[in-house]
């Protein structure tokens, strides 16, 4: 417990977290500070390319592993299953309509790559190794949850819901392609493969870009995330009931426990378990919202964006990651 506290405190006093807090505070104080949209997108491309590449290089160095395929399968399974848990919790804890609950549930089965990056960064700062292929697991977990959400909406939603959608281009081939060839998945997997192919030599070529300034650029990205989260919280004050906030804090812990279980069963390293927990605990705010706008337009976007970005993301960033590290250590991971 003691070490958990000191771990959390140490985590909180890092430029990365404080940059997020600065953005959050600026937005809540209604400052006009903004990161241009193009710069924020460029930063996210940098982060995806960089972690994908480094993951690939690490797999190239340590060799392919039977556990890689099992971990991918476990990630896909978690992504499929967690929305059902989330849906159940939401229907119990909140008054969300089935459609809204299904949409939110989809976000919690999928993942937040920035939370993953932040956790990797903390692990690295503490010298804890982890499996390079966890990046591929992250990519594999992005999409399956969307299908679970659509199924939940079709099963429990009203009749003119997702059904009506299909004639407007709903969960059709177009949407599946969009989800699978989503920019962030393609970039993450592509950079992973480039890293895998070019290995240490490739890394030496470009490490002055993808290693050295990484933490600093992550700070700037989190500054922007703080601004966006803060503006979202301000804009949707009315939206968040106590039940929703409770869900936004409870669900990541539940997800993390599933991640812990998976990690232990797979026999991942201690760092790998932490990353699996983080993936399971984190909620999407890029790929899934876009898919939901297309496939479940009746669902209220401010509910899922605010929950995922305004509650769960800051929770994971500040308290969640230290908790997952403590739990993984306690579980003898």
């Amino acid at each position: 417990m003691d070490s958990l506290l000191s771990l959390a405190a140490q985590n909180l006093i890092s430029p990365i977290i404080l940059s997020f807090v600065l953005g959050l505070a600026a937005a809540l104080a209604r400052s006009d500070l903004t990161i241009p949209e193009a710069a924020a997108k460029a930063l996210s491309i940098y982060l995806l390319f960089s972690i994908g590449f480094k993951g690939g290089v690490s797999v190239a160095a340590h060799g392919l592993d039977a556990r890689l395929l099992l971990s991918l399968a476990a990630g896909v399974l978690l992504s499929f299953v967690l929305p059902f848990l989330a849906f159940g919790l939401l229907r119990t804890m909140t008054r969300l309509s089935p459609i809204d609950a299904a949409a939110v549930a989809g976000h919690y089965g999928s993942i937040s790559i920035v939370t993953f990056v932040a956790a990797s960064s903390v692990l690295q700062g503490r010298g804890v190794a982890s499996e390079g292929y966890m990046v591929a697991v992250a990519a594999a977990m992005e999409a399956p949850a969307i299908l679970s959400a659509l199924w939940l909406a079709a099963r429990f939603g009203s009749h003119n819901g997702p059904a009506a959608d299909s004639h407007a281009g709903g969960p059709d081939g177009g949407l599946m392609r969009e989800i699978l060839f989503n920019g962030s998945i393609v970039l993450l997997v592509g950079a992973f493969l480039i890293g895998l192919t070019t290995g240490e030599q490739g890394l030496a070529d470009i490490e002055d870009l993808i290693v050295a300034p990484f933490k600093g650029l992550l700070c700037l990205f989190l500054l922007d995330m703080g601004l966006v989260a803060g503006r979202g919280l301000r804009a949707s004050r009315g939206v968040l009931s106590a039940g929703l906030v409770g869900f936004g804090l409870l669900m990541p812990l539940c997800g993390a426990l599933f991640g812990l279980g998976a990690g232990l069963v797979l026999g991942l390293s201690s760092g790998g378990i932490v990353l699996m927990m983080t993936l399971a605990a984190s909620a999407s705010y890029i790929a899934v919202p876009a898919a939901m706008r297309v496939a479940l337009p009746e669902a209220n976007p401010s509910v899922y964006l605010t929950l995922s970005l305004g509650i769960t993301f800051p929770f994971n960033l500040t308290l969640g990651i230290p908790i997952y590290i403590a739990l993984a250590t306690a579980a003898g991971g």
Partner: protein
Amino acid sequence: MQTHKAKRVEIIIEAPMERRLTEALVAAGVTGFTVLPVLGGNGRSGLWSREGQVSRAGGMVAVICILREDRLEALLQAAFPLVERHIGVVSVTDCQVLRAERF
């Protein structure tokens, strides 16, 4: 200078729907349109701005389409199913164009 009657249609729609809308337009024989970026806006679902978005999810675009009067109905038929269930605003204005053969 000789001008000809036409219609100017402006559709403001969520960015993730842009491709579906333009495909529907093309399928309905409306092959000329222009897409403008949108910075932000306000409506029943509240205030938003592009720089306040993590992703394109909540962003919007404006699709402008100039066409002959007799094609308007086809356009509206094509666009309606998309804007009906999604956030979107459609307005139609009378206008005059040069070079009627283009439309």
